[in-house]
């Protein structure tokens, strides 16, 4: 008890020391003014004192969980067990779908707009989930494909007046194409190098978008992109929002079905096997290059497609929408929700996008909390909020055999 108290005091003093110059002093070098904010020290001291207790408690709990797991015990949470119940899952999905369909009828345009952006992140998260969650390839430049899709639509729409519906699959395919082109040379790279190279791709794309003025209109971006058409009808702004909302719902459902089917397909199994052990996987005769490339290209496909929706929703795109921060947000959605888990990613997207939207006071701290949650998740709950369901196969005769000894 006393030991723990002492430890927390030390932690508290250490953090006061650590944060002192940045949190207390603020200098104005232009006018030679110094601002001292002594109150911050008190906050840091109290917060770090309490957090150190929490930290130790969480670490201890993690140890206990690990021990239970080693002894073959069940460490699934109640929620997890509930989700694994098939009939309950179908009922819940039905309810959710109905709720999603009536949503824009109940809430106003503003709420619907927010929901659309959350849904966009759901699809982006699910797309990145193919790369990161299933195939275990950390992609830090995912937003590049999103940007490519959006710009493909923006440019073609601006010059040739190509419509939304025509471009929706084309955007996906262009994304996919770029995925193959960029993915091909980097397949041999190990996980962490791959992350850095993809980060590089993201940065390169942004610089190109900013500087290739004749094609992309530089930093000022492309404005007046067409909204999706509905058989030539003239829709009001509110109705258009609802229309895009329904398009997004359809896309989300489509994405969920496809990724769910992919997960249990031959190629999906190959991805997961590759994620677990590359060498063993190659030894088993899986074509590593083709498998990785398919994961990378499919992930890029979703990003490209949703880029088209994004461009037509905002009707304006510029390079500032496609920065590393966007990639980081999508990545934290996948990490928070649970790598490899479709339901988890959806939940993660809603939490990370809607929470800052509805809690304005909190939105300033959004990225701070995203960053911290990524680290904390990795330490305390690496499987995410909802861990991916593992397909298990029971040998039907197993029970009898045990009975017979």
């Amino acid at each position: 008890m006393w030991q723990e108290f002492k430890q927390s005091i030390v932690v508290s003093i250490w953090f006061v020391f650590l944060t002192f110059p940045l949190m207390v002093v603020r200098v104005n070098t232009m006018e030679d003014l110094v601002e001292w904010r002594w109150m911050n020290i008190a906050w840091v001291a109290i917060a770090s004192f309490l957090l150190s207790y929490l930290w130790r408690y969480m670490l201890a709990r993690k140890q206990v969980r690990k021990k239970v797991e080693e002894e073959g015990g069940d460490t699934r949470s109640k929620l997890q067990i509930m989700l694994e119940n098939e009939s309950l899952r179908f009922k819940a999905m039905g309810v959710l779908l109905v709720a999603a369909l009536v949503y824009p009828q109940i809430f106003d345009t503003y709420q619907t707009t927010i929901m659309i952006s959350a849904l966009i992140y759901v699809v982006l998260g699910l797309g990145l989930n193919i790369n990161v969650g299933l195939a275990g390839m950390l992609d830090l430049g995912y937003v590049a494909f999103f940007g490519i899709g959006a710009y493909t639509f923006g440019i073609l729409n601006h010059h040739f007046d190509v419509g939304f519906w025509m471009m929706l699959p084309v955007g996906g395919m262009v994304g996919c194409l770029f995925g193959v082109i960029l993915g091909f040379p980097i397949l041999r790279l190990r996980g962490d190098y791959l992350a850095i190279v993809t980060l590089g791709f993201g940065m390169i794309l942004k610089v190109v978008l900013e500087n290739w003025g004749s094609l992309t209109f530089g930093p000022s971006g492309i404005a007046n992109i067409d909204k999706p058409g509905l058989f030539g009808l003239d829709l009001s702004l509110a109705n258009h929002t609802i229309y895009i909302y329904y398009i997004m719902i359809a896309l989300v459902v489509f994405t969920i079905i496809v990724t769910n089917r992919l997960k249990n397909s031959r190629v999906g199994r190959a991805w997961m096997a590759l994620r677990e052990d590359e060498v063993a996987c190659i030894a088993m005769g899986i074509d590593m290059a083709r498998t990785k490339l398919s994961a990378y290209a499919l992930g890029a496909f979703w990003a490209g497609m949703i880029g088209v929706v994004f461009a037509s929703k905002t009707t304006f795109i510029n390079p500032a929408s496609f920065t590393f921060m966007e990639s980081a947000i999508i990545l934290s959605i996948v990490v928070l929700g649970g790598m490899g888990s479709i339901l988890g990613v959806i939940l993660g997207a809603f939490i990370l996008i809607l929470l800052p939207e509805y809690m304005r006071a909190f939105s300033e701290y959004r990225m701070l909390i995203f960053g911290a949650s990524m680290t904390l998740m990795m330490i305390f709950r690496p499987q995410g909020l909802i861990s991916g369901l593992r397909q298990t196969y029971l040998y039907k005769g197993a029970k009898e055999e045990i009975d017979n000894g």
Partner: protein
Amino acid sequence: MDYFLELFFGGLTRGSIYALIALGYTMVYGIIQLINFAHGEIYMIGAFVALIVAGVCTIYGLSGVAILILAGAVAIVYAAAYGYTLEKIAYRPLRGSPRLSPLISAIGMSIFLQNYVLLVQTADYLPFPRLIPDFAFMEPVAHIIGSPELVILVTTVVTMILLTLLIKKTRVGKGMRATQQDMNMARLVGVNVDRVISMTFIIGSALAAIAGVLVASYIGQVNFYIGFLAGVKAFTAAVLGGIGSIPGAVLGGLVLGWAESFSAGYISSDYEDVFTFGLLVLILILRPSGILGKVTKQKV
């Protein structure tokens, strides 16, 4: 010829800064095979702390060189403290987990530290006082290489010599080399591996802080975001030279500095970052082990 020399020294200065930051990456990677993504942020924090100390000192009326030394010293201490804490909180609990976990944790910390500085300080670019005086003896060559560049070069060379001595001669350095070769074996022969890893973070962070202070007083402004790009570029330098190799990091830094300086000077400065990342992609594809790195075979 003058233009060429100007670019040459510009690249050399830039390269030595990259080398200082890259050393932190390469030492950490050599020991625990982790890309310390938040290393760039440590560099940024070093520069920010130096700015704050310099600001306070200026108001209380200290002179230029005294401020530079004081600000540098405080920045080194703080960066080292941040590096140490970072390792303890974000990486140590993840020892032995899958390879991607510490990397994601590092990315999380990078975002966290950036936004921490953004929130407690400011989003604006802050002007950094000119702390490096103009030397009179540099007058004749000032159009090729200025006093700040000279100070940066000299500081870098001195730091490198000290670092080499530290690694070759001292107990800590021996521990680091042993841990790099084989962590378990080092543990068996009585090296305190946890301490060695902490030391590596402390040394790497201190080097980053030196780079931060030098860059900030050379360029003259500081912002919460400067660490990100500098970090990625320094990582490129580390990979270019062969990650895990200390002379490699220095060589990589210089090559990258020259590549950037000449491509910006002779081709176009708009696409400077594209050249850097293009170089990174090319190196990783063609020779992932870098210029001086050893080719390692994966064993099962």
